[in-house]
């Protein structure tokens, strides 16, 4: 079969000179440039595309665009494979591969169709009523069975090779949809000087003008559309975007649009994104999204070949494709007659079934004038044809239209149905617009706006061209006037279109006599009229309950063609008017959006930015293993030869204790604090006293949150009377700066202090160990490095090879130690220099693990202890808490629970065997033979191998810790099946007097 369903005219938008080959379910077909996968398949006579979700019924095409619920395919192979793509939205490109999904072994013969045979046992919500006995069967048998049936297409298993980009736009007026009202408003707004973005989902601008036989001014609708687009293109204040779907309308007039950039291009450059997500902040949004035709529910109304009448017309007019050659038009309104006329134009005589008693609409008359008789007061009762429709049972309706009087079987190869039109109000609703029900069109339309959003044209329920154009020009001008002072209105041209008679309020046909075929409302999820009836029978009367119980409107199409029909049916059963039944909430996205596009370029290694010190390359060159510290990459250890982590860490730490080590501490937060009130400010921020710190001295400080928990700690130095240099932990650096700004700007605005992060200005290099003094003396021959010259907690400015350097005598390792700060451009040089001069002192670099070992041995607390749940008392910092002054968080420390004497407090632990390292995260218990629940005394926060004593040592925070020193307890890690007898010791394991740092 080769394009035997093409029309002979060439008035559409496909290029028959350019053939495009594609594969569907392994068969090679061809279509033409401008085709969608849907139009190309239909042209080749292929209607069976996939299987439905629940009953695996054969399904074809219902629509022609985003509304399509049925024709979902799996596209491409391997890492480009993509499930659940609706064929109506796929533009044909050479070599495109598509296949059916949710069927096995093939779409023609699908084992899953057994569900359809047994469908009477699977009504809505059946799973809530069964699969409960025996209890163990749920996990083992029932659920695996249900899960196996889950899903439609298959997720790829490999990372996506394509690029997705983002773009932030700001405009005065965003127009969504390029039908007549959209074009008119964009033109009016643009001519009035506003910055306009016009977004169209389809590959062609024009909307209904591409298919409707109308005239505007002296042009056909189609010509007017193309002329308007040319005008807009020439204006510098206009951005035109096709293949672009505005899918979300968020707060403060932020809309989000997805643009398909390169899916339709055969060989796009590897740097061209596949899709681009646009965040558009618009002054005003014009919603001209048109309307979607509604299906009609009747027996077996889901067979391949049953399409929306407007879709059939668009396939003919835009894609030059016939959905069938023996069509039945089934309608409750006049618009479907334009489809009939289009068939007639292609020399095909349709059978027309109209539920109404009569109509005097122009199109109806025109059809009649062509000699076609119309079956008024009739409806389709049922259809036949397994993989494709082959006949319909047409019934004559009785006067109540609740049953059929007579039925006849008519052969056909397609049914083009029309239940009238539903305005596409999704974006307005997302914007917070409470919709109102319009009885004339039997649909919801936007009402009172909450944001700067205006619906026009069919989206606003204005179904005539005249009205759409008038609204478009007026609204476009009015809204643009808010942004410009040109006051340049554009007049709406005259237009001509056929007149229409009113539709009939009938969306569900009676059952044929003696049979109960499924009459579907939601095609993708297989929700039928009987399911809605059942839900209501069981008391699920709210529309939200009906939706959740039956899954109506919850499929990939999110109910675009089913929600309103469902509502109409509920309103009929409940004998309520539709607005009382209400509608379910419209939420973003309007159409499903590729997750990769939402994420953009922050993928892989660039998921989050990485922070690196100026010395980073040296660490890399010297075999460092890195660890993440927030966003920073820090050297964890530097293995030599075949060393594992433990031996490397022990070597590095031991070398600090014995000789001298060097550590990159650039990542520590640094904050410059200046101003006349700086000392007073620090005095309020820290728990200890700061007013009398001499210039040229550093002091250790602890700061709390207002709830009394330790927030951060660090060393702060006084550089001059009113100038301090604060250091923070790496983890809290940004939070501390915000915290300081908060207190200075919000709480104590009277304090005159300026704070500024200088973390990045300085490279910090810690030089620690007994030989550090000798090393520094050599590096800084001009500085008196003696204990008197530069005592513990002193600092001095100097220089090295002409570089300014500041030397702090501070220590985290507990050894005699210094921290050298140089400006960042010289960080690497200085580090190398220290390494070079340090060779003769057996210097070695050490990473964060050795740093941990050194501080744990000394009982210095860090993040593992300061975990946001400890007060100073708990972690042995009570001596840091001033009794004399007030400070942030002090009042909380007097809470009952914070003053209990048996609080969990910091201790040291040594395993009795002096061998077994205690895993961090272990808990401390008294009774090793107890059964769960076992009372816990506390937990192990930090563990190391003590290089001083050559045995394991840990810090723990345990109940009444001080009084447990000397006792034997158990450190247990049930996760690792470990129980270790331990002795409780002081947390200050090495040099408790602190003599080394002062040596």
């Amino acid at each position, binding site marked *: 079969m080769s394009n035997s369903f093409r029309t002979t005219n060439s008035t559409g938008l496909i290029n028959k000179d350019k053939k495009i080959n594609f594969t569907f379910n392994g068969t090679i077909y061809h279509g033409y440039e401008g085709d969608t996968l849907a139009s190309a398949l239909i042209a080749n006579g292929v209607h069976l595309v996939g299987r439905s979700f629940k009953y695996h019924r054969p399904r074809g095409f219902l629509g022609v665009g985003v509304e399509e619920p049925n024709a979902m395919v799996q596209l491409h192979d391997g890492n480009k494979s993509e499930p659940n793509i609706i064929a109506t939205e796929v533009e044909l490109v050479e070599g495109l591969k598509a296949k059916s999904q949710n069927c096995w072994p093939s779409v023609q013969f699908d084992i899953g169709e057994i569900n359809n045979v047994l469908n009477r046992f699977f009504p809505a919500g059946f799973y809530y009523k*069964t699969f409960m006995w025996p209890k163990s069967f749920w996990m083992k048998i029932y659920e695996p069975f249900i899960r196996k049936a889950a899903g439609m297409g298959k997720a790829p298993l490999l990372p996506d090779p394509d690029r997705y980009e983002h773009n932030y736009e700001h405009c005065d007026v965003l127009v969504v949809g390029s039908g007549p009202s959209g074009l008119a408003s964009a033109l009016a707004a643009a001519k009035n000087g506003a910055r306009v973005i016009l977004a169209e989902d389809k590959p062609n601008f024009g909307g209904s003008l591409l298919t409707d036989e109308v005239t505007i001014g002296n042009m056909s609708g189609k010509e007017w559309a193309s002329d308007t687009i040319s005008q807009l293109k020439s204006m510098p204040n206009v951005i035109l975007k096709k293949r672009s779907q505005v899918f979300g309308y968020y707060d403060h007039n932020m809309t989000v649009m997805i643009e398909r950039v390169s899916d339709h291009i055969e060989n796009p450059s590897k740097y061209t994104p596949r899709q681009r997500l646009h965040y558009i902040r618009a002054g005003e949004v014009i919603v001209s999204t048109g309307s979607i035709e509604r299906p009609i529910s009747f027996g077996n109304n889901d067979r391949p070949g049953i399409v929306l009448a407007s879709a059939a017309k668009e396939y003919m007019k835009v894609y030059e494709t016939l959905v069938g050659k023996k069509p039945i038009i089934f309608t409750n309104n006049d618009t479907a007659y334009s489809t009939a006329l289009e068939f007639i134009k292609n020399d095909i005589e349709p059978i027309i079934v109209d539920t109404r008693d009569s109509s005097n609409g122009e199109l109806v008359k025109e059809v009649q004038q062509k000699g076609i008789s119309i079956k008024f007061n009739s409806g389709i009762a049922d259809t036949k044809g397994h993989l494709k429709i082959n006949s319909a049972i047409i019934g004559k309706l009785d006067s109540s239209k609740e049953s059929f009087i007579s039925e006849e079987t008519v052969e056909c190869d397609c049914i083009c149905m029309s239940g009238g039109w539903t305005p596409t109000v999704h974006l307005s609703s997302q914007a917070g617009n409470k919709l109102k029900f319009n009885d004339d069109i039997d649909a919801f339309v936007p009402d009172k706006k909450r944001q700067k959003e205006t619906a026009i044209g069919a989206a606003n329920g204005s179904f005539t061209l005249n009205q759409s154009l008038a609204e478009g020009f007026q609204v476009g001008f009015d809204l643009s006037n808010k942004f410009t002072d040109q006051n340049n209105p554009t007049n709406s041209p005259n237009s001509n279109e056929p007149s229409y008679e009113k539709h009939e309020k009938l969306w569900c046909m009676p059952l044929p006599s003696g049979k109960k075929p499924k009459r579907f409302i939601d095609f993708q999820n297989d929700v039928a009229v009987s399911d809605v009836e059942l839900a209501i029978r069981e008391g699920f009367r709210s529309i939200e309950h009906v939706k959740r119980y039956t899954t109506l409107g919850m499929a990939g199409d999110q109910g675009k063609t089913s929600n309103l029909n469902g509502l109409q049916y509920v309103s009929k059963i409940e004998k309520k008017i539709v607005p009382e039944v209400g509608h379910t909430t419209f939420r973003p996205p309007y159409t499903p959006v590729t997750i990769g596009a939402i994420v953009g370029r922050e993928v892989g290694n660039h*998921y989050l930015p990485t922070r690196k010190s100026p010395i980073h390359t040296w660490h890399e060159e010297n075999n460092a293993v890195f660890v993440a510290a927030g966003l920073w990459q820090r050297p964890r250890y530097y293995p030599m030869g075949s060393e594992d982590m433990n031996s490397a860490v022990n070597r590095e730490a031991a070398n600090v204790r014995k000789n001298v080590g060097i550590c990159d501490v650039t990542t520590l937060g640094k904050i410059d604090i200046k101003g006349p009130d700086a000392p007073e400010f620090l005095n309020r921020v820290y728990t200890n006293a700061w007013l009398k710190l001499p210039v040229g001295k550093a002091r250790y400080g602890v700061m709390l949150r207002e709830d009394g928990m330790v927030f951060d700690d660090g060393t702060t130095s006084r550089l001059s009377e009113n100038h301090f240099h604060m250091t923070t932990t790496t983890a809290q650096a940004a939070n501390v700066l915000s915290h300081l700004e908060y207190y200075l700007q919000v709480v104590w605005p009277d304090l005159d202090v300026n704070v500024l992060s200088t973390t990045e200005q300085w490279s910090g290099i810690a030089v620690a160990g007994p030989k550090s003094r000798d090393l520094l003396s050599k590096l800084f021959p001009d500085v008196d490095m003696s204990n008197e010259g530069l005592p513990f907690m002193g600092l001095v400015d100097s220089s090295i090879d002409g570089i300014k350097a500041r030397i702090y005598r501070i220590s985290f390792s507990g050894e005699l130690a210094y921290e050298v700060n140089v400006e960042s451009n010289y960080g690497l040089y200085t580090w190398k220099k220290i390494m070079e001069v340090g060779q003769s002192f057996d210097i070695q670099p050490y990473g964060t693990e050795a740093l941990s070992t050194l501080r744990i041995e000394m009982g210095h607390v860090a993040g593992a202890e300061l975990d946001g749940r400890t007060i100073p008392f708990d972690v042995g910092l009570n001596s840091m808490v001033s009794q004399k002054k007030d400070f942030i968080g002090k009042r909380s420390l007097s809470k009952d629970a914070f003053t209990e004497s048996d609080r969990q407090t910091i201790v040291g632990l040594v395993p009795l065997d002096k061998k077994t390292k205690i895993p961090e995260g272990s808990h401390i218990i008294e009774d090793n033979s107890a059964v769960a629940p076992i009372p816990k005394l506390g937990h192990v926060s930090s563990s190391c191998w003590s290089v001083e004593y050559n045995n394991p040592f840990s810090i723990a925070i345990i109940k009444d810790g001080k009084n447990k020193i000397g006792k034997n307890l158990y450190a247990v890690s049930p996760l690792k099946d470990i129980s270790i007898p331990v002795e409780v010791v002081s947390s200050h394991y090495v040099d408790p007097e602190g003599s080394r740092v002062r040596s």
Partner: protein
Amino acid sequence: MQKYSVFSLVKNAFTNHENWEVAWKDPEPKKEYDVIIVGGGGHGLATAYYLAKEHGITNVAILEKGWIGGGNVGRNTTILRSNYMFDSNAHFYEFGMKLWETLSQELNYNVMYSPRGIINLAHSDAQMNAYARRGNSMRLNGIDAILLGRDDLKKMIPFADFSETCRFPIHGGLMQPRGGTARHDAVAWGYARQADSMGVDIIQNCEVTGFDVNNGKIEGVQTSRGNIKTKKVGLCVAGSTTLLADMLNMRLPIEAHVLQACVSEPVKPLLHNVVTFGAGHFYCSQSDKGEMVMGGDLDGYNSYAQRGNMPMIQHVLTGGLAVFPNFSRLKMLRTWGGIMDMSMDGSPIIDKTHIEGVYLNCGWCYGGFKATPSSGFVFAHTIAQDQVHELNSDFNLERFHTGKIIDEKGVGPKPWIG
């Protein structure tokens, strides 16, 4: 009440399902009830059920402003777990897990409890240690927990990014095998159906507009459908707690925040566990329908809107792709938001109040769904006995004054952080 079973399903199939009874009635409110539960969500319905079942109190009304199950029980990510570090939380949620295990049978309603295992991914030794602290605490409390290595995880989620060079390489994880999911709507409907069958009046479209309090005692409730007398009122309104508390002149340590979730389109089964990526504020499970159910962090500012904004969706999905790069070509189908009653220490409040006969159930933060059975159970006890149950004795209001706060995350009284 009709019994649901495979037999009843088959039987009804032959009568075209025309003989099913309503799952719950739609009564007019009576003049007076022994207990009024405000809020027809999971916790309110469960409370009413346990009041009837455990305490024989059946003259109970549930007043629901909209339709039952329309709040957070209908808009969560359906995760069940008891993987808590602190004892008060651990014992409470573990009690709940035990109720979940037999809930379908107890309610004669398949809530699809699915213990597929919940995995917390770790990306460093430090994170593994933090999880070990939690996991060990769980085990000592008699709760299941296991550590998973990189190789274990490779078998369970082979499509995750296991490259050594990725931004946060997967190091291992903590798993609670009994953790999992349940069908959220079914939980609400199942409790409603049983409560209704025992005499509880489920009154929908009935908004509470005020309270009659006299001499420090509750006497009745004013509603959009008239005044109703009662001596006991239980508040189970999650995100709306402050609004009702305001009517009672109660100030609470709670903020309302919106938490968003989203689902992908349904795909064939792929992800068999619940996976959380704490460092990236992302968690995910695959529903029985095939949708990837994904959630993350609060939008970050006080909100009573049941909808959220795009930056958080982007943030969550960015975290998602960092773990599961193959999700990139899946499509996001639907997003929604729920209002979280964020307490200042991240733990719930189930307590009596200073008004006699008014009982408070709130502060569920992100985690109210999994607490549904245990919350209902202990709240029913608290109301019926006028005293707290052992399991909710620490979830009191007093803790914000004594300092015995239960802060699992250690972030302090700033619910919008972390």
